[in-house]
C-alpha cells in the first residue's frame, strides 16, 4: 500500500523550514528510510535555491516535484507562507517516471510536449500506463499545443491532469522545482502506471445566468462576436458598466462572472475567464472556445462553490471505485492531490477553510492530502464525445485520488 507522510513549516528561514517540514512528514510515514517521491510547495519569501539545496541534502536521490505557489494546504491547514512537503513510497507493482522540459516557448509548445512525452515514456516498456500528472510554472494559450504534443506520444485520449502554479501575468515568481533544479517556462511531469489506481473529480461551482447567447465569431481563445455584437457587449448589458470600467475592473469581474460554454454530456459548463479585452470589444479568454458555442454569463456563491467541492471529491471517489477493482482487493491506502484555482480560493475567502474541511471529511481518516492554489488547470472532459481529451480549464477544483 502507498505509504504517505505530509509535513509543513512556517519558519522564515529556508533551512529550518525544510528541516521541520521533512521531519514532520517522516514521522507520519511507516517506512522512514525508503522514499520514492517528494512533492514540495513553498511560498515566494523562501528562496527556491535554498529549498532545493536543503531538500536534496535531506532527501538525496529522491525525485522532487513542486514549486513556488501562492497558497498550499495539507489535510490539517491552509498556508500562505512557508513550505509543505509530501513524501510518498509506492507499493510493489506500481511504476512511475518523472521528467521535465523547460524553455517551452523557444522550443515550440508542440515539440516541447512531444519531448516531455518521450522522456516520460522512456521508463515504461511493457507496463500499462495510467495517468500523467503535470506541473506548469504558467499556463498560456500555447499549452493547448503542448498538451497536444504530449498526447501525440502518450495517446490521444491519455488522461493528463495538471495545473499551473503561477499566474501568467506574474513574472516575479521563481517557478517550478524538479529534482535539483529551479525551472522557468517549463513543465515537470510524472507518468504513473502499474498497480496503482486513480480517481479524478472536477468541479467549479459556477451556475449559468440569463438567456443563452451564441458565439458568432471566434478565433482560438479570442471571442470577437456574441449574437453578432462585439463580445464585450455581454458584460456591458449584464453589469451596466461602460467599456472603460469593465476593462479597469476586469481582473475581479472575470473571476466573479466568467463565461460558460455548454458542453453536451458535462454536468457543468466549461468556464472561460477573461484575460483581457481588446479595444474592438473582443474578449481574450483563458482557453479556446469552439465556434458556434452557446454561452451564458456565469455566477457563483460561496455555497455553490463549496457544493462543487463536495461533488468533485465524490466524483473522484466514484471514478476511483470503478478503476480500483482491477487491483486492490486487499488493503490499500490513498493519497490525494488537489489543484484548487487561486481565483476560486480567493473568492471563497475565509470559507477556504470550510472547503478544506469538506475535502478532509469526505475522505477516509488518515488519507494524505496535499493541495496547491493553481492558475489554470488541465484535465480531461468526462463526456464521451470528447473521448477523454485533455482540456484547458479555468477556476476549477481538481481532486485526484491515487490508490495503491
Amino acid at each position: 500500500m502507498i505509504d504517505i507522510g505530509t509535513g509543513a513549516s512556517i519558519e522564515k528561514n529556508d533551512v529550518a523550514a525544510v528541516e521541520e517540514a521533512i521531519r514532520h512528514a517522516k514521522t507520519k510515514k511507516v517506512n522512514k528510510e525508503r522514499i520514492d517521491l517528494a512533492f514540495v510547495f513553498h511560498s515566494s519569501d523562501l528562496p527556491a535555491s535554498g529549498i532545493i539545496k536543503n531538500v536534496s541534502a535531506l532527501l538525496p536521490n529522491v525525485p522532487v516535484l513542486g514549486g513556488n505557489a501562492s497558497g498550499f494546504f495539507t489535510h490539517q491547514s491552509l498556508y500562505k507562507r512557508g513550505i509543505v512537503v509530501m513524501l510518498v513510497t509506492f507499493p510493489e507493482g506500481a511504476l512511475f517516471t518523472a521528467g521535465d522540459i523547460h524553455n517551452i516557448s523557444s522550443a515550440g509548445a508542440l515539440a516541447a510536449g512531444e519531448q516531455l512525452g518521450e522522456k516520460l515514456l522512456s521508463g515504461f516498456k511493457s507496463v500499462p500506463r495510467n495517468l500523467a500528472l503535470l506541473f506548469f510554472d504558467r499556463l498560456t494559450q500555447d499549452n493547448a499545443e503542448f498538451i497536444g504534443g504530449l498526447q501525440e506520444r502518450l495517446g490521444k485520449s491519455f488522461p493528463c491532469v495538471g495545473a499551473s502554479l503561477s499566474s501568467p501575468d506574474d513574472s516575479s515568481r521563481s517557478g517550478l522545482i524538479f529534482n535539483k533544479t529551479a525551472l522557468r517556462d517549463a513543465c515537470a511531469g510524472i507518468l504513473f502506471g502499474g498497480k496503482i489506481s486513480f480517481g479524478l473529480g472536477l468541479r467549479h461551482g459556477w451556475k449559468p445566468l440569463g438567456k443563452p447567447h451564441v458565439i458568432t465569431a471566434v478565433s482560438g481563445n479570442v471571442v470577437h462576436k456574441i449574437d453578432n455584437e462585439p463580445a464585450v457587449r455581454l458584460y456591458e448589458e449584464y453589469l451596466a458598466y461602460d467599456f472603460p470600467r469593465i476593462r479597469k475592473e476586469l481582473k475581479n469581474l472575470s473571476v466573479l462572472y466568467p463565461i460558460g460554454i455548454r458542453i453536451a454530456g458535462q454536468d457543468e459548463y466549461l468556464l472561460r475567464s477573461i484575460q483581457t479585452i481588446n479595444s474592438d470589444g473582443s474578449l481574450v479568454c483563458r482557453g479556446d472556445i469552439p465556434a458556434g458555442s452557446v454561452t451564458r454569463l456565469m455566477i457563483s456563491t460561496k455555497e455553490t462553490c463549496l457544493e462543487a467541492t463536495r461533488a468533485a471529491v465524490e466524483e473522484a471517489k466514484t471514478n476511483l471505485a470503478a478503476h480500483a477493482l482491477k487491483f486492490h482487493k486487499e488493503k490499500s491506502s490513498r493519497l490525494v492531490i488537489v489543484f484548487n484555482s487561486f481565483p476560486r480560493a480567493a473568492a471563497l475567502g475565509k470559507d477556504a477553510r470550510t472547503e478544506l474541511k469538506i475535502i478532509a471529511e469526505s475522505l477516509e481518516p488518515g488519507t494524505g492530502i496535499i493541495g496547491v492554489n493553481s492558475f489554470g488547470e488541465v484535465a480531461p472532459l468526462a463526456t464521451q464525445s470528447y473521448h477523454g481529451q485533455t482540456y484547458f480549464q479555468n477556476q476549477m477544483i481538481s481532486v485526484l485520488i491515487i490508490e495503491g
Partner: protein
Amino acid sequence: MSDIELLMNALGMLGIVCSIGLGIWIVFLLSDIKQLRLSVDNLKHTLDEMDEQAKLVVRTDIELNKAQEELDKKITGLYTLQTLSRQISATLDEAQIFSKIEPPLLADLGFEKAVAFGWDESHPGAVIRLSAGFSEAETAAISSLIDGEKTHFKRLISDERAVSSISPSIDQGFRNKVCTIFKVTAFVISPYLPKEGNKGIFLAGAENPDTVINEGDEELIKILANQIGQALDNARLFEKTWQAHQELESRVEQRTRELSQAFEEIKRVSQRKNDFVSNVSHELRTPLTSIKGYASILLSGKLGVIPEEAHKRLEKINKHSDELVQFVNELLDIARIESGRMTLKIAPVNLKNIVDEVGDMLTVQMKERQIAFSSILPDAIPEVMADYSQIKRVFINLVNNAFKYTQAGGRITVRVQRVDTGIQVDITDTGCGMPEDALDKLFTEFYRVDTAINQEVKGTGLGLAMVKHIVEAHKGNIWVKSKVGAGSTFSFTLPQSV
C-alpha cells in the same frame, strides 16, 4: 349519362368536398400557427424578462460582493491593527517597535510596503527607521530622495495631518513624487508623534495598480502611526526609568561598598582597641600584683611596726589595688569575649544552685543592711545550656548591683521562669531606680548613670557591659525596666537545655 360522366361528376363532387375540407383544415392550421407564434412570443418575452431579472441579479451581486469585500477588508484590517498594536505596545525597546511591522501583517492591512523615517539633529539626512517590502538598494535610494521632499513631510508632521493618494487636499506634484520615490501606486502617509523625542513619518503603500484605498485605510494607518508614537513614548519612558534605576542601583552598590569598608575599618579599630586594652591590662596586672604584694607584706608587720598613719595609707593602697585588679580583670574579660578568645564551657546548668550560692554569698551583707532577699523558682524549672562560672558572674553582678542601689529595708527578688524563647531570669529591686533616658546606654562600656547616689557608690562602668557580652555569648538577650524611685528589674534569657 354514361358511366364516365357519372365518374366525372362524382370526382368533381369529391374535389369540391376535399377543397372545402382543405380550406377548413388550412383555417384551423393557420389558427394553430398563430397560437404557436403567440406562445413563442410569450416564451421569448418571458425569457427576455428573466434575462432582465438576471441582469438585476448580477448588478445586485456586484454590489453585494463589493460590500462584502469592503467588510472583509475592514475586519481583516482591524484585526491586524489590533495584533500590531498589541505587539508594538508590548515592546519597550525603541529599536524593536518598527521591526514588528512585517510584510505579512502589512499585506493583511492591504499594503505591500511600509517605510518610517524622520530627521534627527545628530544626522545630516533622513533617518530610515523601518523599511518593509524594499530591497537594501531601494532603501538607500529612498533615504537620499526623501530629503528633496523634506518640506512637505515636515509640514505634515507640524500639522499633525495624515494624507493619502486619494486625499482631495494632496498636492498632485507631491503625490506623484511620493509614488516615484517609494515605487507605489497608492499610499497613506501619517506622522507618528511621540510627546518626547524625534517625530517622523509612517508611509504604507501598494505597488499593485489594482489596489484601491479609501478613507478607512487612511484611518487605519493613522491609528497605527498613533500607536507607534505612544509605543515610542513608552519605550523612552522605560529607558529613562531603567537608567534611573540603574543609577540608583549603582549608588546603592557604592554606598554599600563604602559602608562595608567603614565597617571593616571599625572592626579593625575595635580589634586594635581590644588588643590595646588587653595588652595594657596585662601590663598593669603585673605591677599591680607587686604593689598589692608589697602592701600586704608591709601591713603584716613582718618588716617592722608601721606607724598608724602609714598603716591607714597602706590599707587604702591595698583596697585600691584590689579594685584596680578587678577593673583590669573585667576589661580583660570584655576584650576576650569581644575578640572571641573566651571559650565557653557549655553544659546543662541548674539555675537554682547558682541562685542559692549567690544568695548565700550576700546573706551577711544583706542582713546588715536589712534587705530581704527572696527567690522564686518553680520546682520543675528545666536546666539551661550555659557556662556555669560565667552565668554565675552575671548573677553576682546583677544581684550585687541591686544590693548597691537598694536602701535599707528594701527587697531583692530573683525570679526564674519558663518563656517561649527559653528560660527568663528577672532580678528586681526596690532601689532608687533610673531615669528612662539612661536605660539605652546602660550596657555601654564605662557608662554610669548620672545620679547623686552614683557619686557615693563606686563602680567601673564595666560590669553591665561584661554581663551583656556574657549573656549574648550564650545567645540570650538582656534588658532593663526601671523608673526613678520605683526600683529596677534586670531580665535576661538563656537557652533551655534539650
